[in-house]
C-alpha cells in the first residue's frame, strides 16, 4: 500500500474523467489503491466517501480496461512465441 497524505487524496478526487482516461495502468492502479484505502478509513465523511466512490469507479474502470487490453496483447504475443513463423531457407541464395 503506498503512503499518502490527505493532499494526495484531494488531488485524486479533483481529477476529471478525461484526466483519468490519460493515466497509464500503474498510475491509475496506485491511485485506486489510495482511494480504496481512504474509503475504508473509519473517519471518512459520507460526502467525501461519495466523491471517493465516484473517482474510484472511474479509476477501476480504467485499470480493468488496461488489464483487458494487456491480456489480449499478451495472449496474442504468447501465441507468436510458441509458434514462430519458419524462416524460408534457400541454400542457393545464402552463403556465397
Amino acid at each position, binding site marked *: 500500500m503506498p503512503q499518502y497524505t490527505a493532499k494526495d487524496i484531494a488531488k485524486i478526487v479533483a481529477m476529471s474523467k478525461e484526466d483519468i482516461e490519460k493515466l497509464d*495502468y500503474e498510475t491509475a*492502479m496506485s491511485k*485506486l*489503491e489510495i482511494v*480504496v484505502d481512504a*474509503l*475504508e478509513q473509519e473517519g471518512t465523511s*459520507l460526502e467525501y*466517501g*461519495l466523491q*471517493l*466512490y465516484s473517482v*474510484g*469507479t472511474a479509476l*477501476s474502470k480504467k*485499470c*480493468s480496461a488496461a*488489464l483487458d487490453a*494487456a*491480456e489480449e496483447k*499478451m495472449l496474442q*504475443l*504468447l501465441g507468436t*512465441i*510458441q509458434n514462430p513463423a519458419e524462416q524460408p*531457407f534457400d*541454400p542457393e541464395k*545464402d*552463403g*556465397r
Partner: protein
Amino acid sequence: MNLLKPAVPFPVKVLSVEDLTKHIKDVVENDNLLSAVWVQGEISNLVKAASGHCYFTLKDDKAVLKACLWAGNRRYISTNFKNGDLVMVYGGISLYAPRGEYQIVVTDLRPAGIGALYEAYEKLKNKLQAEGLFDEERKMPLPFLPKGVGVVTSSTGAVIKDIFRVIRRRFRNMPIYLVPVKVQGDGAAKEIVTGIERLNADSRVDVIIVARGGGSLEDLWAFNEEPVARAISDSKKPIISAVGHETDTTIADLVADKRAATPSVAGEFVVPVKDDLLELIRQKSQRLSRTIKSIFTIQKQRFEKCAQCRFLVKPSLMVAERRNNVMNLSRELDINFKSFIEDTKHKFELLNARFMALDPKVLLKRGYIMAMDDKGKVVTSVKKLKKGAGLKLGFSDGYAGVTVDIIEK
C-alpha cells in the same frame, strides 16, 4: 728413462674407454652451446630410413658433421631437403659411444639464407611492437553473430574447405564471402592487403578471417610483411588470423584481433553454433512467457483486491452503514432515556420510603403514642411531668386526655 720427453705422470689412475667416453659425453651434452645450436652446411650422404628417421652429413669446405633427424621431429619440419641442399639445422650435439662418434640430433631444419628473413622478421616485429600494434587494448572483440564472414585465402586447398565446412556445420546459412588471393610468392602480400580492404568496404561482412596453411618461413613470408600487418591493424572489422602451424607465429598473427591455431578453429571462433542459439532462444522465450504471465496475474490480483472493496461494489453500503449507525444511536437514546426515568423513579421511591418512615402518624399506627402537655407541645421526657398534670395522648385516629398518676425514673 729419456729425460727429454715431457713429464708424464705415473699411470696411477687409468680410465677405461667407456669411462672416458662417458665423461666426454657428459661434457658435450651438458654444454650450453652444444646442446642447442643452429649450424649451417650442405647436405650429403642423405639416408631416409623406412622408419622415418633421416641420417645425413652436413659439410662445408673445412669440416663435416654427422646429423640425424628422428621421425618424431621430422613431422614438424616443412622444408623439403635433398643431397646438395644448403640448410641450417637446429639441435644438440650427442655422442654415440659404441662408435666414438658425435653427431647433431636435428629438431628443426630450414633452408640456409633464411637467417636474413628472420632478421627482417625480428626487426619488423620490434618496430610494430614499439608502435603498440600488438597491444591487447587494440584488439577488437569478435561479433557475437556476424551478418557475414569474409575470408582472405587461397581459393584452392584444404584451408578454405575447412573454414567452409566448420562454419556451415555450426551455422548452416551463414553467408561466407571469399576473396581468393595468392598466399605465397610475388605479389601475395599486395593481394592479401587488397582482400582485407575489399572486405572492409563490404557491408555484408563484419568479421574477416585471414588464413593460410602450414609452410616454411619463406612460404608464410607474405604474412610477415609490413603492408599486411598495417592492413590488419587498420581494419575497421575484427580480423582472425589462421596462418601456418601453431608453432610459427607470423606478424599477421600478432597484429590480428584473434589468432586461431588452425583454419577450423578460426571457423569456430567466428560463428556460434546455431542449434545452441535456437535452444537458448527457446529457453528464454519460455521464461519470457512465464514471466509475463506472472506479471499479469500479480497485477490482476492487485486490481481485484481493490475492485472488491465493498464500498466500490455496493456504494449504498456507505449510506446503509451510516443509517444503521443512526438507528443504533436512536435506539440507544431510547434505552438510555427509559433507564434514566426508571432511575429517577427509583431514587424518589427510596427517598419517599425514608420520608414515610419518619412520618409520626405511621408510628402511631404501629402502636406508638404521642404525649403532649396542655399547651400542645410534645413531651419527650418524664422529667417534664408532674403528678396530677394533664396530658394529651395522641393516637393515630384521635386524642385522649389523661392525668399523670405515677412518675418513675
